[in-house]
């Protein structure tokens, strides 16, 4: 009996753990932030949230939450995956726009790597005459990426408020800032590639160089080298 009970408890514990891990996946730790905010709520905001919780999930769930909140705050009790999902959806509703913006930014920043691109380009001195245009085109492509960056569907399903109007506006602001940042990096990068080409050209011996531009939405690696013998001969006949 004891062994059976122990096994059941253990399997229940494991189920809770896996459910919690599933809820937390892809949230970039904003669940911990939400829980921390939730634990630090007081006064009118706290009452407001409790009322919303009762209204959305019933009085029994609400009274369990009130009873367990101290355990969550101390870390002695971990909320289940379901409770975490409820809090993740309810707490941001009572946050101010600034707090919500920060959560959203953290979420988008962590999912940016899924949208990042890597490009490479070889510039042969004297042969790749349109390299500036090619580098500019690639940089432009990465500068446009912030506008197309969306969160994965499973994250949108898990926390619905990321699709709300105010979150959409917040995301557009973030995208505008990221675009601005990308444009600044890209313009410096294009100038640096031009300088690299000029410098490699100024050396008589075997010389080569690479320039890696790190933009928020990807990398562009430009490899600059002198023409080889066949390219030189080919150019003579072309």
């Amino acid at each position, binding site marked *: 009996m004891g062994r059976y009970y122990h096994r059941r408890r253990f399997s229940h514990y494991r189920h809770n753990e896996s459910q919690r891990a599933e809820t937390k996946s892809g949230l970039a730790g904003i669940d911990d932030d939400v829980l921390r905010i939730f634990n630090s709520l007081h006064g009118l905001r706290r009452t407001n949230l409790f009322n919303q919780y009762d209204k959305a999930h019933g009085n029994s769930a609400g009274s369990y939450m009130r009873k367990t909140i101290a355990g969550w705050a101390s870390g002695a009790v971990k909320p289940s995956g379901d409770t975490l999902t409820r809090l993740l959806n309810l707490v941001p509703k009572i946050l101010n726009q600034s707090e919500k913006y920060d959560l959203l930014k953290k979420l988008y920043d962590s999912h940016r790597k899924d949208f990042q691109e890597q490009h490479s380009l070889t510039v042969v001195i004297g042969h790749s005459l349109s390299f500036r245009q090619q580098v500019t085109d690639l940089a432009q492509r990465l500068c446009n990426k912030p506008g197309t960056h969306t969160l994965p569907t499973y994250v949108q399903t898990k926390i619905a408020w990321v699709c709300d109007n105010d979150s959409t506006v917040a995301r557009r602001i973030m995208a505008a800032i990221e675009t601005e940042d990308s444009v600044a990096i890209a313009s410096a990068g294009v100038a640096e590639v031009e300088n690299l080409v000029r*410098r490699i050209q100024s050396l008589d011996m075997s010389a080569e160089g690479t320039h890696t531009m790190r933009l928020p939405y990807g990398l562009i690696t430009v490899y600059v080298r002198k023409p080889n013998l066949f390219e030189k001969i080919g150019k003579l006949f072309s």
Partner: protein
Amino acid sequence: MAENFELVKAQFISGQLPAGSILAKVLADLPAEDVARLKQKAAEGMLGVELKRLADQNKFQVSSADIDDFIQNAQRMERTHSGVTSSYKMDGRFETASGETTITSKKGCFIATAVYGSANHPNVVRLRRFRDRHLETHFVGRLFCALYYRLSPRLAAGFFSRGKAQNGMRRLLDRVCAFLNG
């Protein structure tokens, strides 16, 4: 797309969004306090970008000066190592405003250096002297050198840097050097 963002951002920050635009409609539904906070976030973000841009301008100038110094040193090396028995390799890595630049400048006998383990081995010096005195004085020799410098770095780094291939090549080069000496 970038221009669109630029326009929306400017309109948003200045509060002059066109009445029919989606963003204007969305903002109209938001409480004034939320709109003010979003504007503050936008302004903070732009300030961050401006500060980063200033830092990057400084980084651009500093890295450009560093790379110019490196190139001047490489040109000096080219001049001082233009004669016989000369080889050098210079590598530079620079953090720049947009990322990272690396430059490599080199002159040397790659396979022989890989086989003998040193650029100053007597046989390597002998081969280099032969290159400078005999090969580089006529067209076919220069063609051979150009082809050799194109292929040899990869062969030296891979095939001839280990095991039987290295030993075999060493024996062959020993004979060539003995012939050059004789």
